[in-house]
């Protein structure tokens, strides 16, 4: 059977540091406890996680596609839609072939960094294979976990394309995406989300205690090893409920790198390039909001009060951020804009992603407000100051709000601020208790995760972009860019009225 989970460490970091770096080849192999007891799935969990999966697809198609598409000039509308839609389809296929395995299987010697190939083509799974959640004794079908996670793998690379929209060759982009998910995304997912699950932890903790009592050092070491056979960032104790680092910071920095490597659009700064349809952008933004509930609340992997809290937080943070951007822009630029309102909402959604299951509704509302204002300043003042052409503000919204959210999570998790507190699955094996909150440790773990992601994804993406640029060439000809990618690359026109 397989155990795995989503979201940052759920044990006290203190404990883990003891084990850091210990390899654990065999750890996941033997899990007798679970092998015996027959596992049943709750129909409510299946219903909820099925819906969550559907919602994440909805936020990508048509959600993200329209949010981005509406912001480009009509001559490039279809290129954006085609990019997003084809990325979803292609990554889904890759996910079944080897992606899931690289992200969510034991990686052997490389386990800290990436999974193995044992689950290629979903090998060894059937209707009854369970996947662990975050509650002791609660499981969902692994097929469901595979599918839910698949939607995350599909949307992340799609987020990147906004940074260099209107000026990338389709063929080059597809090659880039295939390389990027393989070399950047799957490892990131493994490093942040791969762990043994609550029951597995309980079993090992019990074994550890017994061994220590019996003075059996060998057994004790084995148990310790098993307890740290998780992804690298997971072991660092980074909290990421729904993918702030893996999805948003990761895609955001890759986007920035991409737009710098590819360069500005022809005529950028000289010709005017207004969004061709803010209506489409609004529809997309609204669907992002709607679908994001599946993204965040679904990341709880079961339907209970925690998924409800994650949903409520997603709601309050988004509302707060939208209002904040609207008012701040009104004050700064003199007019409240729809685009600002919608962008603010997205910034709030991004910021609350890592915090959704950890913070309280009011804390997350403030997190959203901060994200709204900071991202506004970033997408206007800062961006113009640096003068890079991040067409759709992938960096300014996803990366910046992602960082705000990641670090904010370290603060808002504090029960003193209405947070859920840092979980401890080990002190009392079999039950989940809350460990003491230590500001410094909590925030530092978040900062480390952010820095790691920026470096790993930033550098990795740069190398991949360069290789693709050399081999295929990332950029179409100037004439192609002027004519528009729709006709030149896809032989279609978005609107024929």
């Amino acid at each position, binding site marked *: 059977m397989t155990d795995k989970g989503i979201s940052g460490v759920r044990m006290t970091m203190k404990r883990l540091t003891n084990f850091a770096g210990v390899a654990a080849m065999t750890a996941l192999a033997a899990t007798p406890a679970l092998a015996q007891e027959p596992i049943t799935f709750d129909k409510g969990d299946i219903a909820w996680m099925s819906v969550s999966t559907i919602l994440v697809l909805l936020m990508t198609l048509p959600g993200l596609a329209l949010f981005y598409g509406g912001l480009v000039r009509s001559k490039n509308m279809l290129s954006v839609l085609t990019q997003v839609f084809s990325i979803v389809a292609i990554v889904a296929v890759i996910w079944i072939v080897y992606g899931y395995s690289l992200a969510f299987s034991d990686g052997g010697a490389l386990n800290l960094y990436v999974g193995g190939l044992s689950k290629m083509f979903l090998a060894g799974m059937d209707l009854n294979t369970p996947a662990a959640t975050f509650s002791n004794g609660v499981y969902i079908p692994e097929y469901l976990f595979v599918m839910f996670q698949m939607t995350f793998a599909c949307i992340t690379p799609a987020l990147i394309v906004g940074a260099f929209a209107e000026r990338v060759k389709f063929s080059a982009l597809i090659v880039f995406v295939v390389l990027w998910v393989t070399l950047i995304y799957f490892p990131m997912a493994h490093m942040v989300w791969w762990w043994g699950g609550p029951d597995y932890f309980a079993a090992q903790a019990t074994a550890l205690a017994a061994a220590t009592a019996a003075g059996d050092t060998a057994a004790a070491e084995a148990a310790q090893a098993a307890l740290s056979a998780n992804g690298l960032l997971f072991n660092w104790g980074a909290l990421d409920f729904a993918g702030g680092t893996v999805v948003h910071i990761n895609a955001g920095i890759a986007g920035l790198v991409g737009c710098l490597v590819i360069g500005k659009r022809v005529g950028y700064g000289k010709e005017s390039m*207004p*969004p061709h349809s803010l209506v489409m952008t609004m529809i997309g933004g609204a669907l992002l909001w709607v679908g994001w509930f599946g993204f965040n609340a679904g990341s709880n992997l079961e339907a209970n009060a925690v998924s409800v809290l994650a949903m409520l937080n997603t709601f309050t943070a988004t509302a707060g951020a939208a209002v904040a951007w609207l008012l701040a822009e009104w004050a700064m630029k003199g007019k409240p*804009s729809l685009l600002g309102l919608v962008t603010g909402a997205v910034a709030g959604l991004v910021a609350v992603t890592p915090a959704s299951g950890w913070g309280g509704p009011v804390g997350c509302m403030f997190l959203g407000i901060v994200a709204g204002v900071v991202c506004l300043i970033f997408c*206007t*003042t800062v961006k*113009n100051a640096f003068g890079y052409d991040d067409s759709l503000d992938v960096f300014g919204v996803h990366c910046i709000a992602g960082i705000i959210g990641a670090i904010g999570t370290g603060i808002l998790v504090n029960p003193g601020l209405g947070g859920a507190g840092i979980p401890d699955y080990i002190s009392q094996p079999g039950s989940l208790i809350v460990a003491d909150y230590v500001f410094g440790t909590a925030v530092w773990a978040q900062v480390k995760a952010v820095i790691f992601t920026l470096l790993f994804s930033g550098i990795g993406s740069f190398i991949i972009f360069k290789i693709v640029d050399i081999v295929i060439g990332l950029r179409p000809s100037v004439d192609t860019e002027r004519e528009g990618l729709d006709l030149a690359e896809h032989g279609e026109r978005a609107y024929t009225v």
Partner: protein
Amino acid sequence: MKLIIAVIKPFKLEEVREALTTIGVQGLMVSEVKGYGRQSGHTEIYRGAEYVVNFVPKIKLELVVPDAMVDKVVEALASTAKTGKIGDGKVFVLNVEQALRVRTGETGDDAL
């Protein structure tokens, strides 16, 4: 025959059309144009990007009329299209050498 080209404010179209019909104009062509002139445009802001739009939406009328009617038409246009505010538009008159009604093959004034 003369070709009369008039640029007017969009919301004046119906009023103008009626006025012309009443004085006997039998047909015309209407097209939407972007006008540049003394009337200033506006500014659009999308996140960081500010765009100054110098063009104002206008309606262009084109109609060919017998020489005899030109003055009446120009007057009608001048009076109905007028708001007194900047941007009311212009009227231009050009000479037309031939006219043909496709359906009947009629030419000259009969074609109008």
